[in-house]
């Protein structure tokens, strides 16, 4: 189990990471989610032993202070793979096996197995320069897994890829990591990536750990308005408007309330308790997206079925979906 206690990293006196405490149980995948520049990559590099850190980083209660990167038994996979350009695909994957003096036959067997696992069987002799971005990342993943690491560190593994490819690979990544049973720490700024791949989520902002817990839990109840917005909630409402929307969703509230609403929290419904005037309407392939000036709430997003199409200026009625909004404390 990886445990961080009050870990800080400073560059020339500026804190890139300050006071982060985290636990990662064996076999789980933790995603560290944060906007770019939030210090999440620095945290990963500190765990890998590539940045000097204050505080304690321990594995199974044994401190890793003073243990150099190559003795930590963690594998690190970079954003752009960092394959060794002068080695073939097979030689790249075999690199860590060679370091561990694994015999030629066993090595060949493992390499073939790993390439098969990442869906690149038969790519042995190719050179990294001839691969596509997605293929390169798969090779990098196979190479990292070859170590059979105690902990796999993934630094934005899919960020360098284009959207379509990323969507396909993100499911592969989850499947591969599950199949290998690897404990993994994934750093990303992409919430979809984090939700799909990880079991647990840690949100980092401006060098601090804001929230940590199982993915569904963090997603259901963000710690604060900024986290909610970062996690994909469309707006954060306060006071009167917040209470109105909450009550419309059937949640009883009193006093000061803050509610984060997703884009789909308000839905067109002729029998709904809220009413308002349509300010914008845009039809997407799946649904109708609206911006509505709701009485007692103000300007909010809403959705409707693709079949309905109210015009701008028209008055509509809306209901609120409880599962699509979150009460912040």
């Amino acid at each position: 189990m990886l445990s961080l206690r009050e870990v800080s990293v400073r560059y020339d006196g500026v804190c890139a990471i300050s006071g982060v405490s985290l636990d990662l149980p064996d076999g789980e995948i933790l995603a560290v989610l944060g906007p770019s520049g939030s210090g999440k990559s620095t945290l990963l590099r500190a765990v890998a032993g590539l940045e000097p850190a204050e505080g304690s980083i321990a594995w199974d209660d044994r401190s890793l202070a003073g243990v150099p990167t190559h003795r930590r038994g963690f594998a690190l996979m970079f954003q752009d793979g960092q394959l060794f350009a002068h080695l073939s695909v097979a030689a790249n994957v075999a690199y860590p096996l060679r370091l561990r003096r694994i015999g030629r036959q066993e090595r060949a067997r493992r390499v073939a197995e790993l390439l098969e696992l990442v869906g690149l069987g038969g790519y042995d002799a190719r050179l990294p320069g001839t691969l596509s971005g997605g293929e390169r990342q798969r090779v990098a993943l196979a190479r990292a897994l070859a170590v059979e690491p105690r902990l796999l560190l993934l630094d934005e593994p899919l960020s360098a890829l284009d959207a379509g490819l990323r969507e396909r690979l993100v499911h592969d990544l989850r499947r591969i990591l599950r199949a290998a049973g690897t404990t993994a720490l994934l750093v990303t700024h992409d919430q979809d990536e984090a939700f799909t791949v990880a079991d647990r989520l840690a949100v980092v902002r401006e060098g601090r750990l804001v929230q940590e817990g199982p993915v569904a839990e963090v997603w259901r109840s963000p710690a604060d308005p900024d986290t909610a917005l970062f996690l994909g909630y469309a707006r954060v409402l306060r006071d009167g408007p917040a209470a109105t929307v909450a009550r419309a969703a059937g949640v009883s509230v009193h006093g000061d309330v803050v509610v984060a609403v997703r884009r789909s929290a308000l839905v067109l419904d002729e029998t709904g308790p809220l009413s308002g005037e349509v300010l914008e309407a845009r039809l997407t392939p799946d649904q109708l997206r609206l911006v509505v000036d709701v009485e007692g709430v103000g300007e909010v997003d809403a959705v409707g079925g693709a079949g309905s199409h109210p015009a701008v200026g028209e008055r509509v009625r809306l209901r609120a979906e409880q599962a699509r909004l979150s009460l912040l404390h």
Partner: protein
Amino acid sequence: MERRHLPLTRGSSRNRGSSRNRGSSHNRGSSLSRPLGLLALAAIPVAVLGIFFLLPVIGMVGRGFRPEGRWDVPGVLAVLGRSQVQSALWFTVWSATVATAVTVLLGLPAAYVLHRLALPLRRLVRAALLVPFVLPTIVVGIAFRVLLTGPLSWLSIDGTPVAIIAGLVFFNVAVVVRAVGAAWESLDARPAEAAAALGAAPWTVFRTVTLPALRPAIVGAASVVFLFCATSFGIVLTLGGLRYRSVETEIYLLTTNLLDLQGAAALSLLQLVVVVLLLAVGARLRAVPPSGQRVPVRPHRPGVGDVPQLLLTALVLGFVALPVGALVVGSLRVEGRWSLANYRALTSTGSHQALLEPATTALDLSLRIAVDATLLALTLGLLVALSVTRRTHSRAERRLRGTLDALFMLPLGVSAVTLGFGFLVTLDRPPLDLRDSPWLVPIAQALVALPLVVRTLVPALAGIDDRQRQAAASLGAGPLRSAVVVEVPVLWRPLLAAAGFAFAASLGEFGATSFLARDENATLPVVIYRLIGHPGPMNYGMALAASCVLAATTAVVMLVVERLRVPSLGVL
């Protein structure tokens, strides 16, 4: 399958180049006028190189091949069968090989320490290490003589091959430190980190990741060092005397002492062929700029693991400092006492009429000639650099460009002795009678400095993205205006650095100048050589003092160049 990699990446980098030019591809109709334009730009330097380099060299070599107006090829080939020539050849090869190996082995740790570790005075040390490279070879030779006959006489290696190799290493270690250091500094740190994260210990990381990435730089530096070692004249002449001869000193002896032009021509030709081959190999191995973004590393604080490298660097520094220190100390000692008498004597002509003019006059003349040679080399070098870095559209144009580029590298390896003597035998009658021209020496020195200038300017010019010019043009800037906006800001530092190199190289040039300078207008290196050739402690002391003055002048120039922070020499 693996073999496919090289042509593929080459091809892709070429494609990248051509896609940059796509913006202006519509005027491809003028496909003939472009190479012509290229030639026009290169015409002046080509003409100068033709008249003042190719003509003398061909004239000199031709004289050997046609001793009495008849071709005598067998006679020339027979020269190679002489035992003396063979021993010179063998000595050149093995001494240059050993010196290159030692230089690379010593230079690598120093390159690491001076380019990857955060040390105080890093830049100053780097500049100091560069001084030997621009030190006049004759001064290097004398400094080693002083050291090996004085403080280190107990080693009794004076006059042995060990002394020559030590001199060559001293002279060339800066080339390795600069070239490999520059590559090391710009090396992406992440592959090494990835290897460490996969479980590779520091030494394994170095062996399996860093070394392969540095290989082009190391091989490139090694080939240049080998070239310098194999054609070294001043160092071998002063430290080897008549016992150990390289091809270069053999050419000198055959030409001046024995007047055996046939032998000299054969050796010159052999040297030329070897140099061309080496340059071709070097051009192939020259580092291809890697594509994609890189994360440059910040120098880190030295750790326990860096102790061996630090010790080796200290050794290199000591090795560089010792001869220089011995030279300075020697110049300040007169009859066992500290004195400035040697320096005061520089205003005299030495004892036993060693000189016709005082040494200070020679210094004055040296500086003037160096200024002329620098201006000449800069003008020519700039024209060459501009013409070889112009964007290319066709294969023929690219080939022409490559040929030009290689042509101007030739003076780097052609025996300066051949060049100097060639001047004398070909430029001595109308329409080109330059025997008494004050321009003879500056021209010869400019040609010797030209490769340094071109190699400093070309990378800077080639690094300018053509799209910048296109952007300037699209915003309404004319050709001159866009040159001011795009080229000048990038070029002025390399231009100044190139001026520094040319000035230092010209100031210390000895091989060609020793032929061309007359007694009454000798440059300082020639004067120094004359002084040590004449008996008398005063002459010897004067030679040391003059060497110090020459060394100090070049050192100051190099410190200024270092301040400009141009990654010079890195691409030789």
